């Protein structure tokens, strides 16, 4: 099988090099660009399966570059930025990026994200998932109502029975916030009393299984002071 090509774009050459080394270690082919224009140039001439893009760059910044790429291509884009505010993340994702990693990043985490994005883009493809009615889906999360299995970016996740029921409950209405009591009553089917801790422990375990970085969850989120939810993506 041909090696998958990943384009790394950052005005800091050392960072590009480091990422490239990591990518090669993982078995990908790495292409390098140092500003937005170079990146656009490479994309138009070569076949690229994924782009890691810095935001603050000379000539053409990351967000503008994302917009340009999205005009014609559906390649997964991971944005790399020193800006760690929620608003920056929301902005990046709304521009058409698929993931957002803040600097300084952990190489392992970045590689995991690369892997999951590529898996989703190459082996599955978004199109045929949404059309099946017995699937609950949010972003890369996919719950099969028939087999009661959960896949993250196409990869099967092993869950316990209770965890499966919690995920099924939350996946039924992505974006809705469930208080701990409701989750307990519907999953355990017993009256809830002082259950916050129990529910939280399960949520944390699910998060460790489905999230790449459980400390900064992408899908399963705690709404502090209110409850829990699966993000609607």
């Amino acid at each position, binding site marked *: 099988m041909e090696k998958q090509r990943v384009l790394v774009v950052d005005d*800091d050459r*050392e*960072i590009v090099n*480091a*990422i490239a*080394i*990591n990518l090669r*270690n993982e078995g990908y082919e790495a292409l390098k660009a140092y500003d937005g224009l170079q990146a656009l140039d490479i994309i138009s001439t070569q076949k690229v399966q994924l782009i890691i893009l810095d935001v603050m760059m000379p000539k053409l910044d990351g967000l503008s570059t994302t917009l340009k790429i999205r005009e014609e291509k559906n390649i997964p884009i991971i944005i790399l930025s*020193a*800006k*760690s*505010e*929620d*608003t920056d993340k929301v902005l990046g994702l709304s521009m058409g990026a698929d993931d957002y990693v803040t*600097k*300084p*990043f*952990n*190489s*392992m985490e970045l590689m995991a994200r690369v892997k999951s994005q590529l898996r989703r883009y190459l082996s599955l493809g978004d199109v045929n998932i949404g059309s099946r009615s017995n699937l609950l889906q949010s972003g890369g999360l996919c719950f099969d109502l028939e087999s009661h299995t959960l896949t993250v970016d196409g990869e099967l996740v092993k869950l316990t029975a209770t965890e499966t029921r919690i995920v099924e409950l939350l996946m039924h209405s992505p974006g809705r916030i469930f*208080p*701990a009591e409701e989750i307990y009553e519907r999953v355990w089917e017993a009256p809830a*009393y*002082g259950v*916050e*801790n129990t*529910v*939280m*422990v399960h949520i*944390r375990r699910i998060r460790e299984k489905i999230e790449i970085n459980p400390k900064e969850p992408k899908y399963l989120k*705690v*709404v*502090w*002071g*209110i*409850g829990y939810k699966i993000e609607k993506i």
Partner: protein
Amino acid sequence: MDTKLKKSKPFKVWICFFLAVSILAGLLAIALIALLDSDGVGRGWKDPFLDYRDSVSFKQRTADYFDMMFFLALGSSDSNDLESSKNALDEEGQNIKYCVVNRDSGLILKNIKGDLSSLSNSGKMPVLPEGYKYFWYFDGHKLWVIDDGKPVDIQRMDSGYRDNLLPTERYPAYLAKLAHSQVLLAVKDDLVQNPYGHSSYYQEQQLLSAMGWIYGCLLIFGLLLLAYTIIRRPDKREFDRKLASWSGWMWLEVKILLSLLVLTVSVGVSSDYFGAFDRALNLQLAICPLVLGLWCFYLMLLDLHINGKKFFTHNSINALLTWYRQYEKKYSWHQAMLKRAYGLVAIEAILALLSVLFLITAIEEANAPVLLVAFMIAGAGLYLIYRYLKRYDDTLGDLGRLMDHIELIKNGDMDTRLEAAADADIYPAAQNLNFIQEGMNAAVAEKVKSEHMKVELITNVSHDLKTPLTSIISYVDLLQKEEDLPEHVGDYIKILAHKSERLKNLIQDLFDLSKASSDNLNLNMEQIDLARLIKQTLADMEEPVKASGLTLRCNIPDDPVCIRSDGKKLYRVWENLISNALKYSLTGSRVFIDLTLDGKDAVATIKNTANYEMNFTEEEILQRFVRGDEARTTEGSGLGLSIAQSFTQICGGKFAIKIDGDLFKVELRFTGA
């Protein structure tokens, strides 16, 4: 006026204007008087505009000569008189023909040929040589004035003779003595110069005709000057303003007094009556004060027009008050106020005394004007009291406003200014208060600006720090993956990895804190359950809690404790507080977390026993980069508590730390929603 100004153009133009108006006004006045003088009884105002023979001067001069001759005929004069009279008449030379005859005394004085005796009592008029059509003739009973053969009606008001009539008409007793006398005085038609003496007739005719010409020339000159002034209006106005500014210095009373003085002099001079020969001169002398009066009036109007209200307010009373205020300024506020009160009492006492004195005098002498003076003094006293009370009332009102304003400043209003009248008693205080306000405003603005800049700097720096740190972490990571490295190198790399991770956390904390204190953090305020939030946080941190070996004693109600806040930020607060407690608690001790309701407020506390001596104050520990243990050996940025405090505050809560021996307590207080 300094010389420089005198030479300037506005001054020249204004002088032209002055001359033009003076001349024209003078001429106008003369013309008006002449017009009103139509009955001829006046003082010969019209003379310069008339034929000499029709002028009052001519008639009066003739009457004077005739009078003189008449008294000669009466025979009451001695030989000296006779000689001087004859000399006076001969001065006229050819211009007169005269004859005085008194057959009783045998006096004959004449310069004509022939005799008048034949005409005595005949009722016939004498026949005079060619060129003498005008003559006066007294035939012993009656006076005739003949002009060109016809008698003139000398009794008419407008004939010009009434005032100059002979004493015979006034004193009929003389007539008996003059029954046999004849007096004749004829005046030459064309007056000529007398080479052997001074002909008064001739000279007066010349003078009056010259006066006519002079008036004409003056009129033209005046009109020309006026036209010039009209063309140079702006210059004239400029000097007008200067004049007004000069006259503005004068008190109103001075202006009025000066004007009255000028008018009095004007009236006095114009009512003075000079001799017949000086009439022409007299005319101008009378006009001069009139014109001066006009200029006084003009200056007053100008002053009023340009200076406006100041025309009235710049008077001696106000000047006195101003002087008194200046005098007051030398003393402290308290002393000035006291002085004012004492001064009022003293003046009132004097005025009361005076008014009583005048009253007694008025009653004793039954004198109305003195009574009026007494009342006026009493009125002045009352007015003074009224002014004082009004001032006192104003000052009290101002004091009230001053206090309100201080209250306003206390409450943080730095923009509203206290307006006070410039002559108010509290004016200096109001001004000073405004200055203080401005100063505080500037200081606050400066502080905000510097704080903002500091935050900006921290944000930028932490941002810039992240880029190289990314490289460091990335390459340390790569190094860690290297195999076949000596063991000690592996250890070094581990240290590098550890420290770069710590640096990363430090930068992130610093960044968060600077954001929080710069108030540009994006908040997502919503209704949350604080009890649930604490439980969630505790559940989330279950593992570190277990690892610490500490016991957590939680007293959190099952019912929701609702507050309005930002859940995510509040989670950071509790995460920091709990990990702080875990880090600095005595091994095996207990950490107490309580949530209670205090009225509407939700109060959450976390208490732990420190594992070291807390030799710092509550304030010190909140200062950035101050850590509980001064050695700074443990992990963490030292910003945990600061971040917790900042986040609590921006989320609408109150954050308090209490240190009691080894007990460390943090209290969070939120207003219930």
